[in-house]
C-alpha cells in the first residue's frame, strides 16, 4: 500500500510548486546527505555522486508535479530517482570497460527485487527486517541492490559461485517478504 507523505512534505511540495526557491533550499538541506550518500555508495565516485545529487533536486524543482505526496514520501521519491541514475551510471561505466576489454561473454540479469518484496508501510519495519537477516543473505541482497550488481558480481565479491549468490539473494528476498507479510497481518 502506498504511504501518504507527512504534512511537512506536502507543505514543502506546495511551496515548490508555487515557485518558492527557499523551499527548494530547505528540501536540499534536509535530504541532500541521504541522496548524496546513496549516490556515493552506488557509484563510489564523489564527483559523479555530487552531479547526481544536483540533478535529483533540479528535477524536483523543474517538474515538481511529477511527485505526488498521496503516493509516498518525498525522501523515497528523490531516492528512487537518485538510485536509478546512479545505477545507470555504474552500468554505463561497466559497458564501456567491457567493450574496452574486447568481446567476452557479458550477461546481465538484474535482480528483480520488486517482484519478491511485498509492500510494507513503514521504513522502520523494512530496516529491521533487513538487519535481522543472517549476514550472508544480507550482504548478498545489499550488493545486488546497492551496486546494481549482477548475480555473478555478487558471487565474485562474496567468493561464492554465481548460482549460490543467486539463491542467497532469492532466499533473502523471500525471508524479507515473509517477515513483512507476517507483520502486515
Amino acid at each position, binding site marked *: 500500500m*502506498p*504511504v501518504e507523505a507527512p504534512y511537512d512534505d*506536502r*507543505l514543502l511540495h*506546495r*511551496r515548490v*510548486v*508555487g*515557485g*518558492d*526557491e527557499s523551499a*527548494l*533550499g530547505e528540501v*536540499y*538541506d534536509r535530504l*541532500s*546527505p*541521504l541522496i*548524496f*550518500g*546513496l*549516490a*556515493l*555508495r552506488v557509484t563510489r565516485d564523489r564527483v559523479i*555522486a*555530487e552531479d547526481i*545529487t*544536483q540533478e535529483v*533536486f*533540479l528535477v524536483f*524543482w*523543474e*517538474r*515538481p*508535479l*511529477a511527485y505526488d505526496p*498521496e*503516493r*509516498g514520501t518525498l*525522501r*523515497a*521519491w528523490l*531516492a*528512487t530517482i537518485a*538510485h536509478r541514475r546512479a545505477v545507470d551510471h555504474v552500468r554505463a561505466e561497466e559497458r564501456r570497460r567491457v567493450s574496452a576489454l574486447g568481446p567476452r561473454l557479458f550477461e546481465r540479469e538484474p535482480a528483480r*527485487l*520488486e517482484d519478491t*518484496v*511485498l*509492500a*510494507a508501510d513503514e*521504513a522502520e519495519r*523494512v*530496516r529491521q527486517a*533487513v*538487519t535481522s537477516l543472517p549476514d550472508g543473505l544480507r550482504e548478498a541482497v545489499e550488493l545486488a*541492490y*546497492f551496486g546494481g550488481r549482477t548475480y555473478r558480481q555478487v558471487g565474485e565479491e562474496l567468493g561464492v559461485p554465481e548460482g549460490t549468490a543467486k539463491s542467497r539473494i532469492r532466499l533473502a528476498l523471500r525471508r*524479507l517478504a515473509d517477515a*513483512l507479510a507476517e507483520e502486515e497481518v
Partner: protein
Amino acid sequence: MDPVERLYLDAMMEDPGVPARSLRPQLLAGARARRRPAAPTAPWAEPYAGRVAAMDALLASAEDDDWSRVIVEGWTLQELVAHLAAKDGLLAASVGAPVLGPPMGATDSLGRTGDVQAYERARSPEQTRRDWRAQADALCRHLADLPPTTPATLDGMEVPVRDQILARCLETWIHTADAAQTARIRLPDPVADHIRPTADLCARLLPWTMLLSGLDGSGRTLRLTLTGDGGGEWQVPLGVEDAGPGTPDAHITADVVAFCFLLGGRGDPAEFPAELAGDLSLARDVLTTAPALSGP
C-alpha cells in the same frame, strides 16, 4: 512507493552519506535557469505570483499532444494560456504596466482573448508559454511599487488592484486545475497564506453574486466557516451597500478550497458539500448564486 526503494533507503540510514553542503548555492543558481521562481512582487500580489509559477510547472511537463487537447470553453491548452495572458494584459494596461502580445485592440476580456489567441496560434506552444509568463511577471514587477488600493478596471469593474490581482490568482488557479485534470495530474493546493486572501475575496463577492442573480440580501448577514489550510471565519453582510455585518441569519460551513472553486464556477451549487444552519433558504440562495461572477 516501491518497497525496494524503501529497502534501499533503510540500509542507507545505517550508513548516512557525507553531506554535500557546498553544492547548495550552485543548486539554487541551476534551479533558476531550469524553471523561473515566482516573480518578486508586492506581498498582496504573492498569491497570484505563486499560481503563475504553479501553472508554469504544469506547462513544463506538457508534451506536444497536451497543447492541442481541449481543456475548457472549447479552448486547447495553448488557447487557454493565451486567454490568461489576455486578461493579465488587460489588468496590466489598466495600471500602467507593460502590455505584451499583439497591439491592444479590443479592451474586453473575450475580445482581447480572441486577439491574443489569434496571435499565439501562429507561434509554438513553448513561445505562448513564454509570452504568458513574461506578461505575468511584468505585471508582478509593476505591482511591487503600487499601493494595493490603486483603482484598476477589468471588464468595466473598477475595484482596488489588490482585489483584481486576487481574482487573477483565482482564475489562474482554477485553469491550472482544469489543465491538471485533463492531464490526470494531481495539483497541490496553494499554501495557506495564499488561499486565505483568495477565500476572503470570494467571501466579499457574495453580496454581488446575489445581486447579479436578482436576489437582494440587504440587511442579512451570513456566518461563513471555511475549513482546511487557509480557512477561517467570516461575517458577511449580504447587501452590497450594508455598512457592516449584523447578527448572522444563516451559517455555512464548507471546505475553503471547494468554496473558492464554487465561486470560480467549478462544481454544482446544488450538490455542493456544506453544512447549513439558521435560515436554510438564505444559505441555499447564497450557494446557488455563488458562481454568478465566474466566466471563462
